[in-house]
């Protein structure tokens, strides 16, 4: 079992042994890059078809089922279509920036994917400040949205880009604040250490993942909402709202550039889902002791696929938010709740010193009560604000 768990690590070492000593670092880097691109390009293809099939089933349709068995060769057909399409650049577009925008998305996202621990000893790049690196490169994807929207010389593109940037900046705050709790408890910015801190089992069978603590559950909840917004997915897909602004900042993109954008967005979703798995769902740890024989990377990708399924499920369920609802939700609900969660995490951390029997239950109840009260209270505020009659400043 150990050998199966480490099969990719030993495989890489075995392959590298064929290279001369001097080339081994370069070979190692290239192998890792090839692995990331290969795995996530495949996952992207599988996700597109699964998304269409699941959305179809949610709407009582079949979904694509013509190309290949059950339609599973649809991504290949889509890919061929994308690559053979004409690459149209608007005449008035800023051609250089229009060209660079998809690259400015795909490069940071690929970098973000490279710091996630995919399994035991399987981290492409191990940084002391891996989490910070992730957010640093994640923040620079906003630039690509701006570049795409501005360079297209299309008002829908520009409106989409502005919406995208406003949304990404707003939701980055709760996103980062919800991860601060994990950093506080683990005491490290290293993603590997965060995963290691979640190994082991409570009472011998309960996984000690962060999501099974009050602050961790709230943090996971906040993180997933903010992650949905960061990856521009429904119900936060205002930047690409088809019914309002055509395709937002993607309006003037076609062919291969559009495919790159599309892939970049999905990769961004994978990256942020992988980060939530790492931070809250125990990374590559098995959920039960008797399931530990299954290799670690399989656990990681199982959790990743489950989160992606949740994203798709959510997309099939909820309608799009309005811009003011989006903003008030981020600033009036998520942000105060994230700040409360930090306080709760601090209480949780310092009440570790309590050692009397039943202390764990008491801590649990106390922390959960604080969060529940603030959730209900803040939620009521949001609900009241939504029920109030909307005043249209210019439309009436």
């Amino acid at each position, binding site marked *: 079992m150990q050998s199966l768990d480490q099969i990719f690590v030993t495989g890489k070492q075995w392959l590298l042994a064929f290279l001369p000593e001097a080339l081994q670092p370069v070979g190692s880097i290239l192998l890792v890059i090839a692995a990331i691109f290969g795995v996530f390009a495949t996952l992207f293809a599988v996700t597109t078809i699964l998304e269409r099939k699941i959305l179809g089933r949610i709407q009582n349709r079949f979904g694509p089922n013509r190309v290949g068995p059950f339609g599973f060769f649809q991504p290949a057909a889509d890919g061929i279509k994308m690559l053979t399409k004409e690459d149209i650049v608007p005449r008035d577009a800023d051609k250089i920036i229009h060209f660079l925008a998809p690259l400015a998305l795909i490069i940071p996202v690929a970098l973000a994917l490279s710091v996630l621990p995919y399994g035991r000893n399987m981290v492409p790049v191990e940084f002391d400040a891996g989490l910070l690196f992730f957010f640093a490169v994640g923040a620079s994807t906003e630039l690509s949205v701006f570049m795409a929207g501005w360079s297209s010389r299309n008002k829908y593109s520009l409106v989409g880009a502005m919406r995208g940037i406003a949304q990404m900046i707003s939701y980055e705050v709760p996103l980062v604040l919800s991860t601060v709790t994990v950093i506080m408890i683990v005491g490290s910015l290293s993603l590997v250490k965060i995963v290691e801190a979640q190994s082991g089992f409570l009472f011998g069978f309960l996984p000690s993942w962060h999501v099974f603590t009050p602050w961790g559950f709230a943090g996971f909840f906040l993180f997933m909402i903010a992650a949905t917004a960061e990856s521009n997915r429904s119900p936060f897909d205002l930047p690409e709202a088809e019914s309002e602004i055509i395709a937002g900042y993607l309006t003037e993109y076609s062919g291969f550039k559009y495919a790159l954008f599309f892939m970049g967005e999905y990769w961004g979703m994978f990256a942020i889902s992988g980060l939530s798995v790492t931070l809250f769902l125990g990374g590559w740890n098995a959920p039960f002791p008797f399931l530990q024989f299954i290799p670690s990377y399989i656990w990681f990708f199982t959790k990743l696929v489950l989160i992606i399924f949740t994203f798709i*499920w959510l997309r099939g369920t909820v309608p799009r938010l309005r811009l003011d609802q989006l903003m008030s939700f981020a600033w009036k609900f998520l942000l105060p709740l994230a700040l409360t969660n930090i306080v709760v995490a601090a209480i949780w951390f310092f009440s570790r010193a309590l050692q009397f029997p039943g202390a764990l239950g008491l801590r649990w109840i106390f922390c959960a009560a604080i969060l529940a009260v603030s959730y209900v209270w803040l939620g009521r505020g949001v609900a009241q604000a939504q029920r109030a009659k909307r005043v249209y400043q210019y439309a009436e």
Partner: protein
Amino acid sequence: MLGTGIIKGMVETARNFVGSYHDPERLTTVQYPEERLAPKENGRSFPFLVFDGNDQQAGLRCVACQICEKECPPQCIYINKSKDKKPDYVGKLQFYPATFDIDISVCMSCQICVEVCPFEAIKMDQVFELSTSDRFGKLLLHKPQLAKPNEYFHQLHPTDANEVDARLGEEKRKAEAKAAAAAAAAAAKLAAPKPAPDEPTKAT
């Protein structure tokens, strides 16, 4: 409480998702080339020309009056009137279309040609698998392609067709009766004055 609506919605979509797998009744999709929906009587795609009997040239109801050509909003009908005449269903001599073309790439299936036709000669078809690799030539339908027997019309729109047949039959009967009456009158006229001159001739 905030979020209960989303949970309700997620439960609903999950029920759809699972239900669509074990309950085929939920799926509304028809797997088109293999399965087909039965045609609806009021369905319509593009116009066709009705002819009676077996010979489409002889039985064509169209008399090339060109009303449909003038009324057609997208101007997709092209008619050339014939030089000679042929008898129509009542036996009256009428012009007929030397050419009758419909450009179905322009036609918008509005059925105005059918409404305005005084001769029940143009009706709406239900064929829809008309895709072709030649968007200019093969989407311009000519008279031989457009002309379809009355039985086909009966098959598509039975109610309408029966009504039309009844009316036309009535007209034909009236026309025949009229013709017979006229013939009788003519015969009577012919017969009546004839004896008169006959008689004098006889008398004389």
